[in-house]
């Protein structure tokens, strides 16, 4: 056995040497090599009650992943804790042409059903556990402050670390599952006090509340994987983590994580660790990034538009990447409903899809808002817009979104919330 610098318990060493079989030994070897790369001192027990996996899609061509899952199941290497997983890639309610539907079912996500079966065998919480926003109350996978997690999904990891004060590295798909199977994760980076200190101070000096998705994008592109400590945002958000603020931070964080690689941010006077430790979280050599109105305008103007015809009329709109919270869903519903009524209209001008976790959709459908949304023609879905947009025909389809994450990974064009509302209500002349 190779010599490792990490302190391992006798049990962990035995697993590495094959005491629990070859597959379990390879899982442990992967975790140890991963930790050694980052100077981990030891393997830390996972204390969060549930895991979260990033890989939800049964993409036919990704055979190596499904073969690996088969091996894990066959060898009894299943998760020691239940887990949630990212949203499903297909929902028949979401508009798609006949060729797109054929591509989805026969070519792209042909392994979806068998992969869903694999997830169930490995420890999936339930059929309703498919969402990127697993931390919502309705879903039930909400870590406590200080919990050590074995999660992936960049938007969920950055939220759990920053807003909830849990401890999780930006693990990759597969590593997330390995940590849940072994019940331990390497202790480095965002699991340590030192790794949670900020090497950037971001000064927000805007004249109005910054659009969450653009502010997150600007910070992500500048600080990459570093931890930013953000001053001046509490002026616009206040000092309480209420529903609106948590929703703002969800979208902000997703943009920092997808446009850069941020796994943790602190917001002065607002997020749990910033409230407890304040400036002690800032490294002495921290760099400074000032964000004003002009900087946000510069960032937005630099987004490439890769539609074949940049002036094309949008044919589809997605709102909800990451998935919408219940509060966001009701807010969007009333905004669309009231705007349409004010214009003497009843239905949206562009096919529009709002996406949310299955459990949030269930709550919403039992509320008085459901009929109002239905009347506007907006479709409510549990789908992952990113996975939907991966079909090759979407490259030619002008899609708009208020998600900077969706913009980053697909040909969708980013619009602010205000622009989206105007587009879907008024249409394009």
């Amino acid at each position, binding site marked *: 056995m190779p010599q490792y610098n990490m302190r391992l318990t006798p049990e962990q060493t035995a697993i590495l040497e094959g005491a629990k079989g070859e597959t379990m030994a390879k899982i442990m070897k992967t975790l140890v090599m991963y930790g050694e*790369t980052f100077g981990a001192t030891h393997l830390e027990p996972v204390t969060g009650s549930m895991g979260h996996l990033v890989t939800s899609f049964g993409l036919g061509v990704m055979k190596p992943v499904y073969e690996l899952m088969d091996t894990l199941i066959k060898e009894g290497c299943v998760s020691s804790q239940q887990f949630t997983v990212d949203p499903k890639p297909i929902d028949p309610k979401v508009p798609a042409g006949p060729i797109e539907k054929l591509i989805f079912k026969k070519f792209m996500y042909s392994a979806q059903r068998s992969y869903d079966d694999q997830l169930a065998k490995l420890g999936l919480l339930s059929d309703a556990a498919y969402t990127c926003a697993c931390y919502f109350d309705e879903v039930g996978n909400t870590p406590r402050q200080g919990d050590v997690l074995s999660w992936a999904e960049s938007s969920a990891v950055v939220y759990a670390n920053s807003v909830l004060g849990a401890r999780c590295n930006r693990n990759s798909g597969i*590593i997330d599952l390995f940590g849940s199977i072994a019940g331990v994760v390497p202790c480095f980076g965002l699991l340590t006090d030192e790794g949670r200190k900020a090497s950037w101070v971001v000064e927000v000096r805007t004249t109005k509340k910054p659009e969450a998705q653009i502010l997150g994008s600007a910070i992500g592109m500048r600080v990459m*994987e570093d931890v930013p400590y953000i001053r001046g945002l509490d002026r616009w958000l206040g000092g309480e983590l209420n529903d609106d603020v948590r929703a703002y931070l969800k979208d902000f964080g997703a943009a920092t994580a997808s446009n850069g690689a941020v796994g943790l941010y602190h917001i002065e006077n607002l997020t749990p660790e910033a409230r407890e430790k304040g400036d002690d979280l800032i490294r002495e050599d921290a760099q400074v990034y000032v964000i004003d109105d002009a900087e946000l305008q510069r960032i937005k103007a630099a987004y490439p538009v890769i539609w074949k015809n940049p002036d094309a009329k949008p044919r589809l709109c997605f709102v909800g990447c990451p998935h919408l919270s219940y509060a966001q869903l009701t807010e969007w519903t009333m905004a669309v409903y009231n705007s349409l009524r004010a214009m003497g209209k009843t239905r949206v001008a562009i096919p529009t899809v709002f996406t949310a976790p299955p459990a949030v959709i269930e709550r919403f459908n039992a509320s008085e808002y459901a009929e109002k949304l239905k009347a506007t023609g907006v479709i409510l879905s549990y789908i992952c817009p990113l996975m939907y947009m991966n079909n090759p025909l979407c490259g030619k389809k002008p899609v708009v979104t208020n998600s900077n994450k969706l913009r980053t990974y697909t040909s969708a064009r980013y619009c602010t919330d205000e622009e989206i509302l105007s587009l879907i209500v008024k249409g394009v002349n």
Partner: protein
Amino acid sequence: MKVFHGRVVVPGEARATALVSHGGFNTLASFQHSLMFGDKTAKCGDQNNPDLYNRPMAGTALCMPQTIGSTTGGMVLYCASAMGRSPACLLFSKPIDSLAAAGAILSDVWTDHPMPTVDSLGDAFLEAVQTGDQIEVASDGTVTVL
């Protein structure tokens, strides 16, 4: 000829043509299209990366500061490796990030196509190397731009 010394993350030797990204390498955005639609050359699909967009990545010496983006990144690299569409080696000017490390290690432990990986080569490495240069990677982390 310029010689750089880095830290070995996954040991091995390689000789390949350099493909250089001066910005963060977004693994999912770069690979997803080619993995889905059978492009064996693995043309980069990341519209936000002007250095790499539309350039084949399979078999190259992929040089970058770090990777960024989705946490599927390591799994995507693992798939590319298992399917024979990965870069020949990964060379990082900065300390490697957790997603790229996962991909390199998963490929090493679980596939027959490991990608030798060296990090901490320094900013001077990315300033010196250009797309199209021939690169030689030695097992001790020495990277030579020929």
